[in-house]
């Protein structure tokens, strides 16, 4: 049965249903148990499973370290990092421990953990609560970075993340929590490592993830009135990336616009652009354009934050530039 629920609720439901199914799954993090999480995402879990929900001290390295160790014993920890920006204090545990355990144990065991983290800007929380940390993780072989844009994707991908034997960083964009969408009540999973063609089109390939997908949809709508047909691709798993879907699309359209929250320099748009430039140069009809945040820390004042974040006007501009090239 389909219902309309929020992105937040979809995540909560995924955890509930997986915990129901597999007693090796538990949740751990700051305020995730009794309070149900700083953003309320894990509410109800501790009540149902008081021995499988753990409030911790402010010790992110210990949270990830413990999760890795427990995973080596066959458990399936779902850890919450609260704000993704806090990944800095446990970065070593993520990149040098979680990411490498499968390789170190030759697949006999691995860091089968999920690290849920709230990412992105837009709520006036400045430098340390607004960052897009995706690129900090995407150069680390062994990690998986998942980034849903809809409640449906959030539930299905989180279920797959929990079942995966790889360490999955599951990014929840704070701007999406209240977003509603159709979500089956039953337990289902969605494949990792597969991009989604959100909309079919022939003239421009728009790549966008998380809250940027809305920009892409809006642009596609606007442009369709001008007779320009956009294909929208949401990678869903940012890393390892489903290269093929993007390559196939750009091979068809010849034009690429990437909308990416977070600083431009060395954002993942860079990799997508280079991948295309390297692999299908002969199909390209125009320069690629990146619409991104500015290369600054995130300021607090609303006007400043809005200015730093990607602008819809720039999406439009980029699209007309690649069309008129």
């Amino acid at each position, binding site marked *: 049965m389909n219902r309309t629920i929020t992105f937040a609720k979809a995540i909560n439901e995924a955890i509930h249903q997986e915990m129901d199914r597999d007693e090796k799954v538990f949740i751990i993090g*700051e305020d995730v148990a009794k*309070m149900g999480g700083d953003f309320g995402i894990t509410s109800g879990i501790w009540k149902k499973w008081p021995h499988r929900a753990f409030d*911790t001290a402010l010790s992110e390295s210990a949270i990830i370290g413990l999760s890795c160790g427990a995973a080596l014993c066959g458990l399936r920890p779902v850890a919450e990092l609260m704000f993704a*920006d806090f990944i800095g204090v446990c970065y070593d545990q993520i990149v040098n421990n979680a990411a490498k355990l499968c390789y170190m144990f030759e697949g006999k065991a691995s860091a089968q953990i999920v690290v849920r983290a709230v990412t992105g800007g837009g709520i006036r929380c400045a430098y340390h*609560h607004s960052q897009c940390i995706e690129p900090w993780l995407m150069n680390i072989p062994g990690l998986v970075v998942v980034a849903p844009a809809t409640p449906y994707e959030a539930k299905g991908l989180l279920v797959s993340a929990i079942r995966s034997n790889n360490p999955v960083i599951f990014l929840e964009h704070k701007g999406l929590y209240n977003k509603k969408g159709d979500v089956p009540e039953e337990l289902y999973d969605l494949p990792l490592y597969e991009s989604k063609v959100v909309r079919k089109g022939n003239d421009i390939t728009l790549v966008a993830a998380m809250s940027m997908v809305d920009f892409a949809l809006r642009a596609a709508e606007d442009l369709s009135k001008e007779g320009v047909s956009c294909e929208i691709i949401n990678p869903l798993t940012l890393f390892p990336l489903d290269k093929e879907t993007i390559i196939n699309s750009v091979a068809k359209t010849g034009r690429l616009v990437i909308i990416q929250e977070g600083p431009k320099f060395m954002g993942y748009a860079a990799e997508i652009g280079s991948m295309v430039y390297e692999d299908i140069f002969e199909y390209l009809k125009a320069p690629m354009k990146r619409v991104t945040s500015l290369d600054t820390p995130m300021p*607090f*004042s609303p006007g400043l934050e809005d200015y730093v974040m990607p602008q819809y006007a720039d999406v439009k501009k980029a699209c007309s530039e690649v069309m008129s090239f």
Partner: protein
Amino acid sequence: MTITKEHLLKVYQDMVLIRRFEEVVEKYSKNGTIPGFIHLSIGQEAAQAGVIDTLKETDYKFPDHRGHGAIVLSSRPEDRKTIMAEIFGKKTGINGGRGGSMHINDLKVRNMGFNGIQGSTVVTSLGTAFASFYNHTDDVTVVFMGDGTLGEGTCHESMNMAATWKLPLIYVLINNQYAISTKYTESHPQEYLADWAKGYLVPSETIDGNDIEVVIESTQKAIERARKGEGPTLIEMMTYRWQGHFSGDPAAYRPQGELESWKEKCPIKQTKSKLMNIYGISELDLDLIQRKTEDEVEGYLQFSLASPWPSTDDATSWVYSDISVEGRK
């Protein structure tokens, strides 16, 4: 120790200022005028006022995320309105509206600012303490940290290094019972968090953080040790935040009656009754202080409300000290 009547009156005024400042911030946060998250320090005024009172302007101060009080009191009176303007995100804010509530620094008075990552200033503060040692000055460093923050690994690295090198660093551990929803006894093994410092052979004590005389006395002792080169001290100040973790948090995790019992121990009320009963100051005089403070803070508010927003150019300045960053074209 007893402090003089004048001294007690002064810090009473300080506490009243914090309380009023926070009340106004709370109101404008709740009504949506102030953007972002706000962590209020109502109930914790004695710890903030008492510590700042014992410091000189050239001592280094690291407020925490619940630090409006310490920030306002560290600042020069003429700058206080710019602190409120900062919280409103205005161009006239002391940091141009760029930092907001959680990121207010003021080099003039050596308020070194907060970093939104808990435990970060606990190691940054090693550096200012180290600078005093390196430059042979007698400035001490005070870092405020919460009971929850003590969970971070940086606390260990900081304490270990400060203790080994006997740096002039004072850890003011504000134990307001909770880290968001988590009671300190659920995340730490000690009954008294101050005991943690004993593992480093660092002097520490747990004090009533709502009694400003006790706060001042304990801080003075720690500062003396630090200035004499005897190294760090940790002071655990027991207190309570009356509001939720952030303004708007219903704080459903608190047992019934807990807030009320702590309101009984209100640091301002306690000091007020001491001033009246021991020092014979009239209620009228104290009311006058209250009214003057309200006017004062009303001034900050009007300034903040009337101030312009930053211009978008402000977003791209000072990413680097020497080169510029592109804005939008």
